[in-house]
Every structure is written in structure tokens, then in C-alpha cells.
């Protein structure tokens, strides 16, 4: 036993015990018990992950568990990274949940099991184990998504989408991995790495698993569950799903594509990069249009995971071209973005949950003015929004900078496909970053600043202490990651090295220095410099400006009387210019109704403007499939008309056919 295996065992034990206890204890003690158990589970997961990142390994297999297949667990740096992230998010969600969670017994008991399943996925070292943990994760998350099904009818719809799409994704992963297993002596990862594989089969395996894993990561085109399920789940569950579960999709792509299949031809990674790029832009565009706070965050997850896949794709492409060091850099950038995204998305979802808790409103058009009632939540969300906007000194800035460095340096001397791919990828990252800025300015500015746009928002009050503690903890982690990414970068680099080989991608303590290529960045310096500059400006202002006291004054109302909240810019109007720019991509649905005064058609009484930006990919892709399935089912009903003659006829004709065939072949 070592720290890694002990930690994992501890996490599993804590999770399962918590689930059992949560079923048994009375309703009032339940949130505290679940929260405490979740914190323990998460902490044990972090410990196991940290040990794994430090290079502690273990390997166990229990053939008796899971009949026929058996399970095997182990640890390496790559697994450790994802374990640590999941554990960390769980820990924070546990703290938050103590005063947030008011759900039923089943949901409370499922939550720790969900965390356990997520912790086990990266620790799996055989196909059977991976699949069983994957499905356990899907099952528990499905139950959690459904936790509030009585409150809102949309929950059932979201659950349906999630159930079907996640099962579809699982099926493709299953097929892919089983084809791989069929060419190997056993189903352990070690066997698979050693298996000789024909190129076509490897490609098939990769594509199949890619479809499944990217679906879990919320990547287009199988993303449709994500913007539905994430908003409808309880907020700490949303945080777990959005910050921990989707990562495992990336884990799957990296583990199978780079580790088990050992890289592969360029086209694999061009596909990955393309999927990532399209998802990033599409996700953030939808987020920029969204007025539902949690849906916005959900689409932002699609965006960020898209960016991660851009990094993974670049890593695969570079590795295929023999540039191992740069591949390591690209993968390290992607994995660092996974970590960073987990930190800031947890922050954001928890803050959104706090808003929802206080107001019951998710619609940005009805929020606003939360600063007064909820100062801590506002500050936390503001910090999260900065982190998500990829601006210094935010968290995402560092990882996106690393990603850009990998892309800039990724062009080989002679040019080639990379010479076109890399600049386009840079453009995608840039556009995504720009739109992310717009999105989060909207979310924060409209949602939290200015005046409340509804009664609920006006009466909002700060959330209970444990929720605040959870949020602040998440924000603090995001802050540390933003300023001192060097704390985690060596570990992230080691995890990347597991998949693509090569040494550490970066070095340095206060400064991130790239290995092998020129490039350095010191987020700490920027933070300090900004702070110093603010102090300097403030000093300069004190020295030069008059010392008169600040005076409150009326806003400029064009002389038309006091401004009301209805005159404010809303999230919809804020996004309108962008919507116009991307009209052809988004195909929004708009509707203007003009009401006239009875006496004259020239006097307008009211103008009503409605806009909806449906998910166009979903609109184009899914309805035909659903309609086809429905038609299939409808047509198929003719198979069972109730006529016993018909039923016997099936047998009769089959028999005659079979006998005929037998007579012919004998």
C-alpha cells in the first residue's frame, strides 16, 4: 500500500460509506453528512492524485469483481492529474453543499457515488474497468441531473437527452475499445499497448472512441445534452459535471489516442483539432447569445473543452511529425487548461448556484444589482469571469498563452499542413478568447452590476456561510493557479510526458519558461505590476487632483426623468451586435410585435421583441434522426397488428425459406 492506493481506497470507502449514511440519517442531518463525506472523499482523491502526480504508482487487479471481466486499477501521472482535479472539485462541492443541498435522499446518496465513479475512471487500467466506471459515472450523473425533476418539467427533458446521448457515446467507446481488445491478448492497458494493430483497425478504434469521449466532453456534434443537463442539475452537481466529468472525455482521448494507440497518423489529430476548434467557437458563440446564466456556463464548458482538444490535437499532430518536445508543450497546455477550467468553472457554477439560491432566477434579463445584496457572490463571480475571459491576471490566460506558444512554435521549418493549420488554430483561439470576453462581460455586467431588473433580484440576500466558503475556496484556487501556475506545471508536464514522451515542457518557479523553444511568461510579475501601477496611478491622482469629497449625483437621463430598470441594457440587447455579426452562423429567431393604440395606427402602445437563438447544430442534426426513428417505430407497428395469422405466417414463410435453402444446398 502506498499513498496513491491508500488515497484511492480511502476515497472509495468514504464515498460509499457517505452514500449509505446519507440514506439512513434523518433529513436534517443529511446535508451535513453528505457534505462532510464529500469533503473526505474529495480530499482522499486529491491525495491519491497528488501522489500519482509525484510518481507514486500502484497496480491491483481483482478478477473476481465484475464477473467475466474482472477489474484492474493503477496509477500514473496522467491518471493522477485527473484524479486530483476531480477530488478538488468534489471537495469544494462538498463544502458548498452543506448549506446548499436540500434534495431528496436518493440524490444526496448518489452524489458521493458519482464522485467515486469519476475518481475511478482515470484509475482504471483495463478496458472492462474503464467501461464499468464510465457507465457508473453516467448512471449516477443521470440520477443527479434528475434530482429536481418535480420542480421543473425541463429537467425530465434534459434527463432524456442526457441519458440517450451518454448511452450512445458509451456504445461507441465500447465498440472501439472492444475492437482493440479483440486484437490483444487481454484487456489490460499493458496488453493493449503491446498489441500489434493494423492501421485501419487503429483508425477505426480511434474514431469510435473519439466520438464517445468527445460526446462526454460536450464537443460538437454530440454536445446537445450538455447545455440542457448542466443548467438543470443542482448547481454543485453542475460544477462537478462541468469541471470534473467532462474532463474525463479529454482523458479518454489522450489515454486511448496517445497512450494506448501510441499516437497515429496526422489525420486523427487534424480531426481532433478541427472538432475542438469548431466546438470552441460554436460553444462560445452560443454562450455569448445565451441569457440563461447556467446555460451560458454550460456552453462555455463546450468552448473550453474545445480549446483543450485544440491543444490535444496539436499535441498529436506534433507528435506525429516527430516534434516530441513541442507535443509535450501542447499537451501540457491542454492539461493545464483542464485544471484551470476546473478551477474557474467550479467558481462560476457555485456562484451561479448562489444566485439561483437567492433569487430563483437564472435569466440574466431579470437579474442585475446583485452587488448590493450579495457582495461576496458578486466578487467571486467577477473573479471567475475574469479567469474565464483569458485576460491577465486571470486563470485561463496562462493556459491559453501556453497553447498559443505551442501553436506558434509548432510550424516546422518546411511548412506543410501545419503551416495552414496552426495560424487558423491561433485565429480560433483568438476569436474564442475575444468572444469569451464579451460573454463574461455580459454575464457579470448584466447579471451582477447596475440595477436589479426584477423583484427577486432586488431582494436577493447573501447565501449561507458554507456556500460562501465553497465559492471562496474555489476562487482562491483559481487565483493561486493564475498567479503561480508553476506550482502545478511540473506535474502537468509529467502527465503530458506519459502520453507523448519527452521531458518536462516547462521550467521555472516564478516564471514559466518553455523547454526547447524561446518563450517565457511570468503571471506573478503581471499581477504585481498591475497592482503597483494601480497604486502609482492612485498616488498620482492624490498628488494632482483636488482633495474635494466625492459627491453622489444623478445619472444622465437626457432630462427625461428618473431612469428605471426597464431602460437598462439587458443581456439580450448586449448580445445583439454580436448576434447580427454572426447572423448566418446562428440563425436566430426574432419576432417583433407592435401594439397600436386603438384610435390610431400611428400611435404605438407597446413593442414586444422576442429573440431565441436555438442551437443550430442541434436543429439541423437531431430532428431528422428523431423523426426517422419515430417513423421507423410508427411503421414498425405494422409488424404487430394483432392478427394471429400474420404472426404464424412469419414462422411459416421463414420455415419455407429455410427449407428451400436447405434443399438447395444439400
Amino acid at each position, binding site marked *: 500500500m502506498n499513498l496513491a492506493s491508500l488515497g484511492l481506497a480511502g476515497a472509495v470507502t468514504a464515498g460509499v460509506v457517505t452514500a449509505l449514511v446519507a440514506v439512513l440519517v434523518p433529513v436534517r442531518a443529511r446535508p451535513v453528512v453528505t457534505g462532510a463525506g464529500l469533503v473526505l472523499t474529495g480530499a482522499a482523491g486529491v491525495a491519491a492524485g497528488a501522489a500519482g502526480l509525484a510518481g507514486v504508482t500502484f497496480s491491483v487487479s481483482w478478477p473476481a469483481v465484475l464477473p467475466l471481466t474482472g477489474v484492474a486499477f493503477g496509477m500514473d501521472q496522467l491518471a493522477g492529474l485527473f484524479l486530483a482535479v476531480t477530488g478538488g472539485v468534489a471537495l469544494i462541492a462538498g463544502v458548498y453543499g452543506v448549506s446548499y443541498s436540500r434534495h431528496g435522499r436518493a440524490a444526496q446518496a448518489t452524489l458521493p457515488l458519482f464522485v467515486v465513479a469519476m475518481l475511478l475512471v482515470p484509475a482504471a487500467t483495463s478496458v472492462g474497468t474503464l467501461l464499468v466506471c464510465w457507465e457508473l459515472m453516467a448512471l449516477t450523473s443521470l440520477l443527479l441531473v434528475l434530482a429536481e425533476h418535480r420542480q421543473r418539467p425541463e429537467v425530465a427533458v434534459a434527463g432524456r437527452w442526457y441519458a440517450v446521448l451518454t448511452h450512445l457515446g458509451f456504445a461507441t467507446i465500447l465498440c472501439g475499445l472492444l475492437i482493440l481488445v479483440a486484437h490483444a491478448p487481454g484487456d489490460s492497458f499493458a496488453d493493449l499497448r503491446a498489441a500489434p494493430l493494423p492501421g485501419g483497425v487503429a483508425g477505426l478504434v480511434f474514431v469510435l472512441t473519439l466520438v464517445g469521449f468527445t460526446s462526454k466532453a460536450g464537443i460538437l456534434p454530440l454536445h446537445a445534452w450538455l447545455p440542457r443537463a448542466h443548467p438543470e442539475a443542482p448547481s454543485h452537481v453542475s460544477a462537478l459535471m462541468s469541471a470534473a466529468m467532462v474532463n474525463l472525455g479529454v482523458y479518454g482521448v489522450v489515454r486511448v489516442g496517445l497512450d494506448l494507440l501510441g499516437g497515429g497518423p496526422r489525420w486523427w489529430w487534424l480531426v481532433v483539432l478541427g472538432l475542438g476548434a469548431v466546438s470552441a467557437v460554436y460553444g462560445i458563440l452560443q454562450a455569448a447569445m445565451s441569457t440563461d446564466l447556467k446555460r451560458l456556463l454550460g456552453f462555455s464548458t463546450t468552448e473550453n473543452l474545445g480549446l483543450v482538444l485544440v491543444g490535444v490535437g496539436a499535441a498529436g499532430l506534433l507528435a506525429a511529425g516527430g516534434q516530441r518536445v513541442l507535443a509535450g508543450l501542447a499537451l501540457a497546455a491542454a492539461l493545464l487548461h483542464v485544471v484551470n477550467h476546473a478551477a474557474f468553472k467550479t467558481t462560476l457554477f457555485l456562484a451561479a448556484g448562489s444566485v439561483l439560491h437567492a433569487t430563483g432566477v437564472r435569466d440574466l434579463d431579470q437579474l442585475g444589482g446583485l452587488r448590493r445584496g450579495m457582495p461576496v457572490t458578486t466578487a467571486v463571480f467577477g473573479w471567475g469571469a475574469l479567469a474565464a475571459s483569458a485576460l491577465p491576471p486571470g486563470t485561463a490566460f496562462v493556459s491559453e498563452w501556453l497553447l498559443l506558444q505551442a501553436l506558434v512554435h509548432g510550424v516546422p521549418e518546411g511548412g506543410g499542413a501545419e503551416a495552414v493549420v496552426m495560424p487558423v488554430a491561433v485565429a480560433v483561439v483568438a476569436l474564442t478568447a475575444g468572444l469569451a470576453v464579451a460573454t463574461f462581460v455580459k454575464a457579470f455586467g448584466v447579471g451582477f452590476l447596475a440595477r436589479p431588473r426584477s423583484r427577486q433580484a432586488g431582494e436577493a440576500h447573501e447565501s449561507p456561510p458554507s456556500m460562501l466558503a465553497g465559492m471562496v475556496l474555489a476562487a482562491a484556487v483559481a487565483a493561486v493557479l493564475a498567479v503561480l501556475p508553476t506550482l502545478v506545471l511540473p506535474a502537468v508536464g509529467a502527465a503530458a510526458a506519459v502520453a507523448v514522451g519527452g521531458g518536462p515542457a516547462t521550467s521555472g518557479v516564478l516564471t514559466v519558461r518553455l523547454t526547447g523553444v524561446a518563450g517565457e511568461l511570468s503571471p506573478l510579475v503581471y499581477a504585481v505590476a498591475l497592482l503597483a501601477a494601480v497604486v502609482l496611478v492612485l498616488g498620482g491622482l492624490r498628488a494632482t487632483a483636488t482633495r474635494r469629497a466625492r459627491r453622489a449625483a444623478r445619472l444622465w437621463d437626457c432630462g427625461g426623468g428618473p431612469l428605471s430598470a426597464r431602460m437598462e441594457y439587458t443581456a439580450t440587447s448586449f448580445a445583439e451586435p454580436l448576434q447580427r455579426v454572426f447572423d448566418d452562423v446562428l440563425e436566430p429567431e426574432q419576432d417583433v410585435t407592435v401594439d397600436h393604440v386603438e384610435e390610431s395606427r400611428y400611435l404605438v402602445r407597446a413593442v414586444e421583441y422576442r429573440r431565441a437563438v436555438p442551437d443550430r447544430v442541434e436543429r439541423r442534426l437531431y430532428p431528422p434522426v428523431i423523426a426517422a426513428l419515430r417513423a421507423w417505430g410508427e411503421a414498425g407497428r405494422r409488424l404487430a397488428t*394483432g392478427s394471429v*395469422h400474420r404472426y404464424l405466417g412469419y414462422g411459416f414463410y421463414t420455415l419455407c425459406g429455410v427449407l*428451400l435453402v436447405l434443399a438447395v444446398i*444439400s
Partner: protein
Amino acid sequence: MSESLYTQLLYLAAGAFLLTAVLILWRRELAVIVRILALQGLALAVMVAVLAAREGSVELWAVAGGIAVLRVGVLPHLVRRALTGAEAARRESAPSVNVASSLLAAAGLTLLGFAVSQPLVALAPSPATQAVPVGVTVVLIGFLVLVTRRRALSQLVGFLLLDNGITAVGFLTTAGVGLVVEVGVSLDVLLAVLVLQLLATRMRETFGDTDLDELRELRD
């Protein structure tokens, strides 16, 4: 019994066996059909008796007797009993495939039966196995009756036809499959027919008509 007499008797019985099957397909009057069914049972019993005489086996004679009782007496009687009181259902209403077509189909099925039985005949050529195709054909015709006839009782007859054919094949190939199994099979068939007869009666009681195409409440 001389070889030729044996063969001729056997083939005569087999011919009668097939003919009765075709007649059942042809006729619509249920009472007549039941009578033909009894005749077919008789033909089957004769077939087994001829085999018994040929083999000189007491056991087979006993089986022949059993068959005669069961298939000439009991089973047709059961069907007839279900018929009584069913005035409206005495005639087969228009079958889903008309008589002419079903006769043509029967011709096709005969060809198929003969074609498919070739390996069975070839495995152990003898006068008895030469008649196996007749049994197979009757099985197929029985199935055809099941598929096309609309009255509950006609289906019952079809089932019995099927069963007669199978029994014939059994005796013509290997003179039975062992006593225990034989008895078990006969008992099962008897019980199945009993159950079907009871159900047919119950159906008539519950909703009057036994036209099976009315029976389409359970569907998707």
C-alpha cells in the same frame, strides 16, 4: 407379409394420408373437415399397423392401437365437441387465401416437402423412408392451414394436421422415438388440444364469434 404387399399397403396408407390433408384444405364445412381428420388419423394408424406387421413388433401394434384411439376417436371428438353449439361457425368463412390459391400453394409445398426430405430418404433408403416426404408435406400443409384459416376450430384442425404429419415422419423414419417420449408427446398433444378446445369455447362464450381476425385487441 410380403415385401410388395407391405410396400403397397404402406404407400396406400401414405397416399390416403396426403389426400386427406389436401381435402381438409379444400373443404370448408367444418363438420366434414373433422370427419376427414378422423380419416387421416385412421390412415396414420394403418400406416403404423403395417409397419408393426412388417416388424412383427407387439409394441408397435400397441402404439398403432393407441394412435387409432387418440387420432380417430379422442381428438376429432374434442374438436367436434367444440363445434357443437357454434352454429354460426360451422362453415369456414372466407379464408385469407382462397381455396384455389391454397391448393396451388399445397402443390408447391408438396414439391418443397419432397425436395427437402431427400437427405432423410437417402440416409436409409427403404419403403418406409420413401414415404417420409408425405409426412413432411402434411406438416407444411398443416402449417398452411394454421396460417390461412380464420376459424378457431380450423386452426385447431391445422394444428392436428401438423401433428399427424410429424407423427407420420416419426414412424416412417425410425419407428418411434422411445416409449416414454412417445407417451409424453401424445399426452402433450392431447392436453394442448384440450386447452385449445377449452379456449375456443371460452372465446365463443366471451365474445360470440370465433373468427380469429376479430381477435386483434392486443396490438401495437
